[in-house]
């Protein structure tokens, strides 16, 4: 048994109202892939930020190669041999791959040498990259490669990976795991953060499980069942959403030949999208973020106008209508970004209730908002969807992600939509809130509405959808029954809409 490369001893970090890390101790040996497992809000992010020098702990210490390690900033962490692949926020879209990589290095070589090194290392690990391309033009998977190469060029002793597979297709995940195993065999220790149990069982040698900021268990993933780990992570067993599947009814929403050019320079164009959803049906649209999800939602919500007949709501052409006209007809949406898109962060829950519910709930008279009934509606959402908040007059940003998401979903569901479109309904939401949201969506479908769920979470989609299709580079594959689909098949669908032409004869390019 080798001595640990890195350990934390009693790390504690408190934020107002919450102890993010409470006496956290664990150790990683060289050449070990160590999983850090926990729900959203369990304290994983704070812990890795502490290791990377972005957060200073209130108490406790860290040891690296047996000596005290207390990085004052990420630069110090990098100098010591700690590298990190972020989940969000560490790439610059308008800069090239080489510039992005240079920014993450202490002493980058000359631009020409760096480009050569990037090409060399990326080939060596099977992660091809062109140093001169703009990061904004890359896919999510390629962007992650940029981050990984940036780390590898520093020759790290400890590599931290924060939820790396959330942006990858199953096939890309295999490539990543191959790279990580190769690194491990070369002696690099890897701290792998995830909440996906199957991945951890497939990849990791050791696992530390966090719950509410505390270490609740350390185990060897291969020797423990996924169910046991899940229970350790969540603290209770969760009921899986259930519903009585009925026969699908009439077609409520028909989309055909939907093409959109993106408004922003790095957006994804939608190419000849076509599908139908029936009453009582849940259609799952899978795909890695950045493949046109936001654009599709905008086209369905009415934020982007399209030719009238490309979207038919019960045979009414709605493509050219704005969001409120579509709402009046029964087409409702809940976008992915809660703060700033689905809700205004600094407005109260009452004010946020009127945001989408004004038309259908008749919350205004002659253009004047009826704040009384609006408050009642907000209170109704809070009550029915178990939104934890001191009241209706609280700013939306004061709510936790899960509670705000329940409010946003509840706001739409309680309006009795004919068709509801949700994008990433459970992203960054704790497990119990996620379960409640899924159940609400299923209940809505049971009640006779058509529900479209756009998500990156394939497990979620396979669990609640009747039919599944994949969005890839702005193209939508033909929907297939979700029951019985294997992960391999799903992966192929995500990797490329291979049978698009069969399904969309009118959409020939």
């Amino acid at each position, binding site marked *: 048994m080798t001595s640990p490369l890195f350990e934390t001893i009693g790390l504690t970090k408190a934020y*107002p109202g919450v102890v993010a890390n409470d006496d956290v101790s664990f150790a990683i040996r060289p050449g070990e892939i160590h999983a850090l497992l926990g729900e959203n809000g369990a304290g994983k992010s704070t812990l890795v930020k502490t290791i990377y020098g972005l957060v*200073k*702990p*209130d108490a406790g210490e860290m040891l690296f190669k047996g000596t005290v390690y*207390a990085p*004052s900033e990420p630069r110090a962490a990098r100098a010591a041999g700690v590298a990190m692949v972020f989940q969000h926020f560490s790439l610059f879209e308008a800069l090239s791959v080489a510039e992005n990589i240079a920014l993450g290095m202490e002493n980058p070589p000359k631009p020409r040498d760096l480009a050569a090194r990037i090409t060399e290392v990326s080939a060596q690990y099977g992660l091809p990259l062109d140093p001169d391309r703009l990061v904004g033009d890359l896919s999510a998977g390629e962007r992650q490669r940029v981050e990984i190469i940036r780390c590898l060029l520093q020759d790290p002793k400890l590599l931290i990976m924060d939820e790396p597979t959330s942006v990858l297709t199953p096939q890309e995940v295999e490539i990543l795991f191959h790279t990580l195993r190769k690194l491990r065999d070369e002696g690099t220790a890897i701290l792998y953060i995830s909440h996906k149990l199957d991945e951890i069982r497939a990849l990791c040698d050791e696992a530390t499980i966090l719950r509410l900021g505390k270490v609740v268990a350390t185990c060897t993933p291969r020797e423990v069942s996924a169910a046991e780990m899940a229970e350790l992570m969540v603290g209770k067993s969760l009921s899986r959403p259930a519903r009585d599947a009925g026969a699908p009814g009439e077609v409520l929403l028909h989309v055909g030949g939907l093409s959109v050019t993106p408004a922003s320079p790095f957006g994804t164009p939608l190419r000849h999208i076509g599908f139908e959803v029936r009453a009582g049906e849940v259609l799952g649209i899978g795909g890695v973020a950045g493949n046109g999800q936001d654009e599709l939602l905008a086209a369905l*919500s*009415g*934020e982007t106008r399209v030719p009238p007949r490309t979207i038919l709501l019960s045979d009414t052409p709605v493509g050219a209508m*704005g*969001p*409120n006209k579509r*709402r009046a007809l029964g087409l409702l*949406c809940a*976008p992915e*970004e809660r*703060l*700033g*898109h*689905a*809700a*205004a*962060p*600094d*407005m109260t829950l009452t*004010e946020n209730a*009127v*945001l*989408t519910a*004004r038309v259908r709930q008749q919350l*205004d008279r002659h*253009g*004047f*908002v009826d*704040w009384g009934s609006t408050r009642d509606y907000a209170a109704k959402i809070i009550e029915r969807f178990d939104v934890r908040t001191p009241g209706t007059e*609280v*700013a939306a*940003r*004061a709510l936790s992600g899960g509670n705000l998401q329940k409010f946003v979903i509840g706001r739409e569901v309680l309006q009795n939509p004919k068709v509801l479109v949700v994008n990433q309904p459970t992203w960054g939401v704790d497990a119990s809130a996620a379960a409640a949201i899924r159940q609400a969506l299923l209940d809505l479908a049971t009640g006779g509405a058509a529900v479209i769920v756009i998500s990156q979470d394939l497990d979620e989609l396979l669990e609640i959808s009747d039919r599944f299709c994949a969005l890839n580079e702005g193209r939508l594959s033909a929907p297939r029954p979700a029951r019985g689909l294997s992960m391999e098949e799903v992966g192929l669908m995500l990797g490329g809409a291979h049978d698009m032409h069969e399904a969309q004869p009118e959409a020939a390019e």
Partner: protein
Amino acid sequence: MIRLEKRPTPSRAWNIGAPILAVVLTMIAGGVMFALLGQDPVEAIRVIFWDPLFHERFAAFSRPQLLVKAGPLILIAIGLALGFRAGIWNIGAEGQYIMGALFGAAFGLALYPSESPLIFPAMVIAGALGGWAWAMIPAILKTRFRTNEILVSLLLVYVAEAILASAATGWLRNPEGMGFPGSRDLARHPGTDNPEVIAGTGMHWGVITAFIAVIAAYVLLNRHVLGYQIKLAGQAPRAARFAGVNPGRLVILCLGISGVLAGMAGLFEVSGPAGQITIDFNVGYGFTAIIVAFLGRLHPIGILLAGLLMALTYIGGELAQLMLGVPASAIQAFQGMLLFFLLALDVLANYRIKRAREVVA
């Protein structure tokens, strides 16, 4: 180490407290400024803030001036605040004010020497149209070409000033004025004048319009869907589009309203207190109104109070010039300082100040 920590919900107490504290701090800093200028600071502050209202000799003259000066400031600031709330930055109100005055005055003078009672109301409409048209230039450029409205509206002030100069010295010059620049006196001609409605108060039609605008803006922002959409667009533009707000329409509307109000303010001024079109009848109300709007927290009632306060500093500045020989520009620096303090204190409404424990690493 001091650290800022975002409050979950903005503090209501600080929302009201910050402007008051800003005024106090400005008095202190202004006192220091006057001391550096060789003045007795206490005396200077008294002259600016106290004497306009209570000085035994000057108050009778200066008290009505309070409304005369606050009227246009409030009227313009209300319009600007609606735009600022929506994230639309019209900072060229001065130009819209000039164009409103020119349009209205030109209309009135075209009918000279008629004394019909319909002329003045028509002049008000012409003034509103003038301000509106001038504001539509940045509005249309923004919606059509996404041109920055800050720069366009501001640059148009200089264009308006050039037009004003040509009007005062050329096409609107008083034919009986013996070649002096400046138009006929509108205020002394029945039909084109904007008289005091209640004698001795300074309350002219522009002040009344300003009060109406305050009430209308209050109702709009607190009760009406449009006001809600304005606030939403400013705070979360993406959420506003999701809520069905058309951003282009909002730009046209907000710039239009502020142009109309600024144009009307210009007309009321030129037909009342200023009396005639001269090359420099505009005294920067369009710019000061920006301070008024922020000082009033972009809130109608706040703007009402801020407008009165700012009018007070104007009159106080004039008194200080007269009694203490303080340069006129000192009051402008004073007003700028007030805005700085307010912006600095604003942080307290949204953030808590925490003294962070320095962790010994």
